[in-house]
Each structure stands twice: as structure tokens, then as C-alpha cells.
């Protein structure tokens, strides 16, 4: 691991100022479960690390009124266990509770989670590793394409990269159209969760749309009645403590027996948290049946492109969407 200096600001303003003054090789650290991990692998090599975990007031969870507001430093475990969140928006609580382990959820923050990096084994192979990776070393190539690609994405891939966006929480946030509050050298702004992420294209090392020195301060979700009719369904190689092979976040707005509007986002199968508008359109105005649910699942993967070992994700993903729809629909009673 490369040496670095550590600064520990006490306020958001101090943190943003510290980042503005520092060079490009500066990182915020919150829980550290992504950053410190990748520093140990020499994949991240910051010269300066700004520990934001001591900033007061940034871990608040506010559930009164018409919205849910999560401070960026709120631990995943705290939001997952919040009574209002699990009752009114199970999709959010489930996405957090099914991620990582309780130890890691106690450390990891809901803000840092949005910026976690891929678990692609070729990426994690480490700096100077024997396999090329365009995300790690731009222009070096992609060993996953044509390689051991069982875990790789089937949606949003490019000739340069097929790495999966690994997070569960971002998928749920994209489904509920959450807004991300950001503070930077030029002031504050609010970004739809979906606009935080880039497609790999020919520059897979650029993953997020945050500008340098910008800090996530909060995540805001509008409360809706449909929020209760939701779920995060996650399929893994083992029953617990694994990243998704395929997952679906679903929120259903019913008008009587018919779906008025659905929101569907996919995880484990795409290079970024993935909305499925084709499936959403298919369901609009319909009664939900198992057959229709499966059709919506397949519609979600119409544009998918499989590699050598991951074609199973098309059918697994479609059925994950179908099951998620049926689970969510049960909750309207």
C-alpha cells in the first residue's frame, strides 16, 4: 500500500475545502470497505485520504414528513433496521439487509455504497497484475471478454468492459427515483440516482458523474403509497453474504386490480444500475399474472448480450424480475 496522509475534518465544509485544495489523488473515506480494500490491492493509490466519518450530523436518518432523507454517513445497518423504511419502502430495507454482512453493514455508509467499485476478478487482480483491465489501467484491454466471464454483465456492456455494477442499494434507489444531494467547490446540487452512473463505453475507468471534490451529503426518497408494494429480490450463488448474480428492485402502483405504473431496476446483470423501461411499459394498465410477470422479465433482457459463460443470466434475470413482481404484488393487501 502506498503511504498517504490522513486528514479528519469535522464539518462538511472543511471536507469539501480539503478536497478542493488537494490534487487528483485524493479520496474521501467513509466506511472504507471499498476504498481501504482497494488500497490494499494497490488499485487505489491516494496520496491523501480525507476521513469524513467524524463529521457530525451527516449520519442522520429522517423519516418524518413526505420524504425519507438519509445522511450520507448513515450506516447501511441502521437504515436497513429503520422501522419506517422497512414498513413503507421494503425495497430499500431489503436491498441493504441482503448486502454484505452485518459487520460490513455496520461500517459501510449509504453514501459510500453508491460509489463502490466492481468485483470483477480481473479488476481486483491488483495493480501490476498479469491480466489487463481497462477500468484499472485504461487502454490495457479486457481479460474478462472471452475469459472467465460467468459473473460479467449482459446489459450495458461495451467492447472495452463487461464489469458488473455490484451494488444492491443503488439498484433500489434507481427504482424509486431517489435524489442524491451533492456538495462541491461550486456549491450544492441534487442529482437523480440514475444519473450518477456512466456506461463503460470506451472509457470504463470513468464510472461516476461526480466532479472532482464533490461530496455526497444525503439521499432523498419521496414517500409514496406504492412504496409498500415493493421488494428487492436477490439471487446469489449461496443464500447469504454474496453479491447478486441477478437481482430486481420492483415498486408497483396499483389502480384497483390493474397496475397503473411499475418501476423495475436490475442488479447483478448490468454495467450500471439498470432501469427496465420495456418491462414497465408492458405492465402498464394490466392485471398481473405469472405469465405476464415472466413476459416482463424477458422484456427486461431484450437488449442483453451474453459472453461465453454467462448466458444463464438472461433466463435467471428474467425469472428474478418475474418473482420480484409477484412478491411485490402480494404486498398490496
Amino acid at each position, binding site marked *: *500500500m*502506498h*503511504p*498517504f*496522509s*490522513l486528514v*479528519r475534518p469535522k464539518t462538511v465544509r472543511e471536507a469539501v475545502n480539503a478536497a478542493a485544495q488537494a490534487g487528483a489523488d485524493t479520496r474521501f*473515506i467513509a466506511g*472504507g*470497505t471499498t476504498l*481501504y*480494500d482497494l*488500497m*490494499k490491492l494497490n488499485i487505489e493509490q491516494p496520496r491523501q*485520504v480525507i*476521513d469524513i*466519518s467524524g463529521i457530525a450530523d451527516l449520519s442522520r436518518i429522517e423519516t418524518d414528513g413526505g420524504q425519507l432523507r438519509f445522511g450520507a454517513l448513515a450506516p447501511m*445497518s441502521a437504515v436497513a433496521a429503520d422501522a419506517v423504511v422497512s414498513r413503507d419502502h421494503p425495497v430499500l430495507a431489503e436491498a441493504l439487509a441482503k448486502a*454484505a*454482512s*452485518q*459487520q*460490513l453493514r*455496520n*461500517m459501510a455508509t449509504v453514501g459510500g455504497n453508491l460509489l463502490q467499485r466492481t468485483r470483477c476478478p480481473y479488476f481486483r487482480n491488483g495493480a501490476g497484475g498479469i491480466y489487463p483491465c481497462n477500468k484499472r489501467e485504461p487502454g490495457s484491454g479486457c481479460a474478462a471478454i472471452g475469459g472467465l466471464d460467468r459473473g460479467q454483465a449482459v446489459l450495458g456492456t461495451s467492447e472495452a468492459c463487461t464489469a458488473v455494477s455490484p451494488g444492491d442499494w443503488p439498484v433500489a434507489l434507481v427504482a424509486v427515483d431517489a435524489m442524491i444531494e451533492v456538495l462541491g467547490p461550486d456549491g450544492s446540487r441534487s442529482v437523480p440516482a440514475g444519473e450518477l452512473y456512466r456506461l463503460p463505453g470506451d472509457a470504463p475507468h470513468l464510472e461516476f458523474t461526480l466532479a472532482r471534490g464533490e461530496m455526497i451529503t444525503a439521499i432523498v426518497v419521496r414517500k409514496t403509497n406504492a412504496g409498500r408494494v415493493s421488494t428487492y429480490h436477490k439471487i446469489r450463488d449461496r*443464500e*447469504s*453474504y454474496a453479491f447478486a448474480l441477478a437481482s430486481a428492485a420492483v415498486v408497483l402502483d396499483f389502480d384497483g386490480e390493474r397496475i397503473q405504473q411499475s418501476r423495475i431496476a436490475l442488479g447483478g446483470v448490468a454495467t450500471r444500475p439498470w432501469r427496465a423501461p420495456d418491462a414497465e411499459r408492458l405492465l402498464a394498465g394490466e392485471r398481473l399474472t405469472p405469465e405476464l410477470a415472466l413476459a416482463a422479465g424477458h422484456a427486461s433482457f431484450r437488449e442483453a448480450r451474453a459472453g461465453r459463460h454467462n448466458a444463464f443470466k438472461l433466463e435467471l434475470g428474467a425469472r428474478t424480475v418475474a418473482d420480484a413482481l409477484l412478491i411485490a404484488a402480494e404486498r398490496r393487501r
Partner: protein
Amino acid sequence: MSRQSSILTEGERRSAPDKATDGSFSVTRRTALGAGAAMATGAMSTGVGSVQLAQSGILPDHTVAVRTWINGRSVEVTTDARTSLLDLLRERFGLTGAKKGCDHGQCGACTIHLDGRRVASCLTLAAKADGREVLTIEGLSAGDALHPMQQAFIDHDALQCGYCTPGQIMAAVACVAEGNATSRERIREYMSGNICRCGAYVGIVAAIEDAASKMRRG
């Protein structure tokens, strides 16, 4: 100066070891090795290999001062900013109960409590312990009187080689305190971050069920 971890129940608090009030570590079987190093400062004896240190030319600004409470005792230490809390505990304080299995947050062998919550100490910067309370397996029992969870692990043969056991026990104590040990299913889910290569899972779940009822009774 000493403080108590908030996760401890009244019963556990009473059974926790005496707290030194003079800021020094009392020498126990486990701390004997580290007692001399406890108050030492400087960047040379962290978990980072000294060869690597020499090569990278550590500057003073690559160090951090950490004031923390370890098992109820106040300690102050200066260390390389890169040091993990796991390495600090093991290499500086001789507290080798927490184990290094993977060093990447994947196995749970390094589980300790930080301000009463279980964390993976391998992915926790030592600097993050500053101003906070650390509880390790060494601080769990009252001398020879085992914590109910430790006793339950023995009673239920919840281990084979024992490498994962300190992490399992620290995770299990937290699991009960969180209210997540209410059924076998829930125990399995909330203990899934602790891997046991010997496959002692059946005993581990039984031990936690057993200890949970005793801990609830106090």
C-alpha cells in the same frame, strides 16, 4: 480513564475485567507480549513490514495519533496511517485473539466491537478507533469466568481448529445484543459474515441459541 462498551448487558458489565485507572495495561496471559509496546509511539512497529517502510520513506505526516480505549483501558499510540485496526491490535498490543483470515473483509475472523458494534477490524483504519471504544475477545471474559457465549461454544463443540472462533464469538455476542438471534434462521443469516473452514456451523448456531437465552436472562 475507562469507558464501557454500550453493547454489554448489565450482567456482562459486572463480569468485565477490572478497569485500570492509571491508563496502563494490566498484564494478562494475552497482553503480556504487547504490554511493553502499548505506550510506545513512533512509526516503526506497525503491521507494515519494516522493509516496505524503509523503501517508501515514511514521513511524519504519514502517521496518525490514535487515542482509544481497548478493553476498557485508555491507550495512546502513533502509527502509520495505513495500519489497520487488526494489525494495531495484534502487532502493537499483542492482542492476537482477532485473527487475520483474508484481510479483505470477506471472512469475519477479525471481528471485534467498535463502540459496541461489530466490525471487521481488517478493513477498519486504526485511525478510526480514535476517540472510540474497542472490545476484543480478550476483554470479553472476567478473568477465568467465561462469557456465556464462550462457555456455549465449548458446550456445543462449536469449533474444530479454532481459527475462526474469536471472530465467531464476537459476532455472536453482537448478534444477540442486536436482537438478531431470535431464531435459527435469523442466526444463520446474521452470522453469514463469519466463515468457518472446518464447517462447525451446526455447533455454532446451537451455541448462539443457547447463549442467547442465558444472556437475555442476564
